[in-house]
Structure formats: structure tokens, C-alpha cells
């Protein structure tokens, strides 16, 4: 998808240039328009350079079924955000839940990597 991303980024830059040259776009206009055009071009370059924008080689891959850890991490983030309005004590509880969730995610990902390796190298 690096080519469509580059195409779109260029389109944004053209529209930004039009606003600045033909019309009277100011600094904030230019920053926002060239900013997102440039950001999308950057994404295209990174995708192209790293090969992340290309299709993955076929082969066995994991299909995780459940992830309580992902849910826990998200609920922890929600609690941290709520704590910003309701008090520091919720932030601490939320941070604890995030820590538990992230720990669970690490455990899940390690188990998944091990399972895929066993399938690939029996």
C-alpha cells in the first residue's frame, strides 16, 4: 500500500501548495496541510523501505482465540483516563490493571511465538 499512500500524500501536498500559492493560506494552514501530506509520504517511504507494505510470505501463522490480557490493558487505560477527572486513586488502580494486562500480553505473545515455531520446526 506504499504507492496509494504516496499518491494520497502527494495529492495533499498539491492541495496545500495550491492554497499557499494561488490563494492566501497562512502559516497554520500550511503547517496542517503540508503536515498531513508529508506524514503520509513518510508512511509510504517507511513502508517501502522496510517492506512492511508488502504481502507476507505464506506459511503457518497463529490465530489467537481469546485475549483477556488485551481487555485488561484497555480497561486499565480507561481507568487511568477516568482518574484524570475523578482522582489519583483511580489512576493508580488503572496503572495496576495496565501492568497486569501488559504482563499477560507478553505471556500470550511468547506462548504464541513458541507454538508457531513448533509448527514450523517440528
Amino acid at each position, binding site marked *: 500500500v506504499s504507492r496509494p499512500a504516496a499518491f494520497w500524500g502527494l495529492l495533499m501536498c498539491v492541495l496545500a501548495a495550491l492554497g499557499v500559492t494561488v490563494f492566501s493560506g497562512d502559516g497554520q494552514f500550511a503547517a496542517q496541510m503540508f503536515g498531513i501530506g508529508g506524514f503520509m509520504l513518510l508512511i509510504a517511504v517507511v513502508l517501502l523501505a522496510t517492506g512492511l507494505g508488502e504481502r507476507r510470505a505464506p506459511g503457518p501463522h497463529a490465530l489467537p482465540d481469546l485475549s483477556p490480557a488485551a481487555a485488561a490493558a484497555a480497561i486499565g487505560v480507561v481507568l487511568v483516563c477516568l482518574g*484524570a477527572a475523578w482522582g489519583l486513586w483511580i489512576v493508580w488502580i488503572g496503572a495496576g490493571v495496565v501492568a497486569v494486562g501488559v504482563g499477560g500480553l507478553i505471556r500470550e505473545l511468547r506462548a504464541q511465538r513458541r507454538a508457531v515455531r513448533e509448527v514450523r520446526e517440528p
Partner: protein
Amino acid sequence: MVGALSTDHKRVGMATMVTALVYFAGGGIMALLIRGELAQPGLQLLDRDLYNQLFTLHGSTMLLIFAPAVVMGLGLYMVPLQIGAGDVVWPRLAAFAYWLYAPSGLIMWAGFAVKDGAARSGWHAFYPLTDAFQQPWMGMDLWIIGVFLSQLAVLLWGAVLLATIARRRAPGMTLLRMPFFTWSMVATIFMVVTTYPIVEGALVALFIDRHATSVFTLPGGAVTWQYLFWFYAHPLVYVIFFPVMAAVAEVFATFSRRRLFGHRTSVIAVLVFAALSSSVWGHHMFQQQDVDNRYFSFTTTSISVPASIEYFAFVATMWGGRVRLFATPMLFALGFAITFLIGGLSGILVASPPIDNQVHDTYVIVAHFHYTIFGGTVWGLVTAIYYWFPKWTGRMLDERLGRWHAGLMFLGTVATFFPWFVLGIFGMRREVADYPDWPGWAAWNLVSSIGSAVLAVSFLVFAVNVWRSLRRGAVAGPDPWDGHSLEWATASPPPRENFATLPAVTSYAPLLDLREAAT
């Protein structure tokens, strides 16, 4: 409960859509209360303060909580199926985002329950209506947190889908062989990944402004908020529109038994559409005298070009096809085409600053954006639901109830929203709880309120149809509509790994290719 912890893209997508529809129902109840109050001049049901809270949370729920999430849910479910993938990339991130999203609307609505009530600043949260002096209460903070979480979830889903489209396409599925719906998600995600981070930053800055130190209170801050907010919120309108427009295009193709006309042109048009829609935000600020109105008028009017290309593709697809006109997905697709057209044409009018000067902040604007958002997003979404419901559940929706739904929804849409054009031309202002009893005002408002009740009835018919069909609907089979794209090549509902085998992909309509080769 265990299913809610799933990382299967289909379950996450369905959970997202169902949660979003629950929020839609809540936003709809708020709309009914608003229309109940406005049915007659004077204050009957609500006081002014509660009215302000209701219209703020109605708009915020519909535009910020329901709509972006429901199209992402649709994408999460359908995109991997359309590109022949077994799952999304980063399934845990998709599940993580769902759990950020699920409580976001409740957090916003919790404002009704806390002391001093919910936010009252309109869904656009114009500064200084949102500062700590005007709204020191917690309801405004809860609004900020709710919007922050829901938009963060949409951003993460966008990243998941873009990575999936890049990495997980089936063999033979080149970019230009992707179905138009998947392409519309690409354009949508480009807008999401470039503009959503800006609103996230703006919301954090607003929170800091309210609690820590001056951000928007600095000179020019109020206009800066509008720059940042509209820079996100105008593309948002297209984020919630492109996927359902593309779903409608697929319905036109399937039910005309022809491949989508001008697929490649439509793809380029939707990318141009997305770029233009990211460069029109200043038309919300025509009255500020702080942006170049000529530029934003030019870009806004230019949007009609790619939009017309999409409409031309719809018509040309049906032209000469064997159209199944009275199939319910087709009826809703036609309803979409008509109602959104009214919204789009009125958009060209208000893209002209002299006309906008006259109708700014009147019900003409409210009518315009309800025709685009209800006529576009909601009609398109219902089209998509009628089209893909058999794939999701393995059951057909009842056609007779579906036709009742379509008829009532069309009547309700016109009766609710058309009077607002008239009222706006009369001079009725938006976001007010009461209005004077001047000639015609009460009558048109009453028509609109009756229309909103008809809309509510149409959605009750829809709910009954879904409930009955889930229990007793005809069994759908893998491909009840003779579909064109890969999602119809697997069982209904699809198994965990989506596909046992994949047909060869030689175009953007691989199943149609197979049928044509067989005859």
C-alpha cells in the same frame, strides 16, 4: 462473556457494530426528546439547560461515538474476508481497541448522572464554551475522556486494517483487484491516521487548559481550537461515509448482476475524494474571517466531481443490468442514493460563502448535515446490514418486514429533515430549545417531530426483523445474493480461519468471474 474477550476479527467487528448500534439507539432517544420539545413553541418537556445537554450529547453520540466505530466494525468484519485473509494483523490490538471503545459512550453519558449534568457545548465543543470558567463541572471532562477513548480506538482499528490490507491479501489479490469496499477503507484509513492524532492532541490540550494551565485561553486560542477540531471533524464526515457508500456500490453491482462499472476510476475518485475532504475544513469557519474563504469554497465545491463519478458508477452499473429492484438491500441502496443526493446538493449551495452568510447557524445547515449523515451514513449502513446480514448470521432477514422498514424510513427521513430547510429559510436558529410562534414555524416543526416518530417506528420494525430472523430466518447458505467478492466464497457465518480454500483471484469480482466462466 468469553466471546467478548475474543480476538477473532469477526467477533471484534460484530461486537463493535452491536455496541455502536446501542449507542445509536441512545442518541436516537435523545433526538426524540429534542423533537418532542420542539414539536410546539414554548417549553413543555425539557428546560433549556437539559435541552443544551441533550443536543450536545445527541450530536456527540451520533458523530463521535456511534458512526466512526460502526464503519470500523464493518471494516474489521468484512475487509479480511474480502481480501481472502484468515485474520487481521495484530488481532490483540483490535480487541484492545474494542475495550477502549465500549465504555467511551457510557463515560460521556455518565455526565447526566454527575452533579451539574453533562457537557453543554455542542458536539463541536467550541472554545470558550468548554473552558473551566463556562463549564467547571465534571460532565465536560467526561465528554473529553469519552471522545478521546473512542477516537483512539478508531485510530488503532485503522492501523490494524491498513496493516491487514498491506500484509494479508490472498495470492492473486493485487491492490487493483481489491473490492471497492476495501478500497474505500484504505481511503478512510488515510484520513484517520492523518487527522485523528490531531484531535487526540487537541483534546489533551483542552483538558490541560481546563485543569492545569492556559492553552486555548491564549490570544487566538478559540480560533486555534476550531482549526484543530474541524481539521479532524470534516474528514470525519467522510470517514463515516466512504465505507457505506462503497457497500452501496457493491449492492448496486450485485443486484444488477453486473460488475461495478469503472472500478479503477472509482478507486482513484475515492482517493481524490478523501484528499479534497481533508482540505475543506475551513468552510466551517467562513464566518470567522480567519481563513481564505475562496480556497475552502473552491475545494468544497470540487468535492462534487469525485462524488459525481461515484454516482455515475452507480447508474452505469445498473444500466443494462438485470436489476433486482425490490430486493431489500437494493431498496435501501436507492434510498441512500436519493437522500444523500439532497444532502450533497445542499452542500454545494452552502459551500458558497455568500449563501453560507445567510443560512449560517440556521436549520438549513442542520437539514444539510442530517441529509448527508443520516441520508448517507445511516441509509448506507442499513443497506450494508441487509446485504451482509446473511453472511454474518447464516440467516436471511425477512423481505416483507424489510420493505416496511425501507418505506417507513424513507417517509420518516423526508418528513423529519425536509421541514428544516423551510424553517432555516424562515430564519429558525439551530441549538435553541424554544422558538417564536410565527406563521408556519409550529406547523413545520410538528411535521418534523411526527417524522422523527415515524423514523423511530421504522427502527423498531428493523429490530423486530433482526430478532425474528435470528431465530427463524430462512437459512442463507454461503452466497444467497450471487455476490461478486471473496466473502461469498466461504460459509455463512464464516469459520474461525475464514476460508478452507480460496478461488483464483483474477479480478475485483472473482466469484462473478467463476460464474461467467461456467456459463
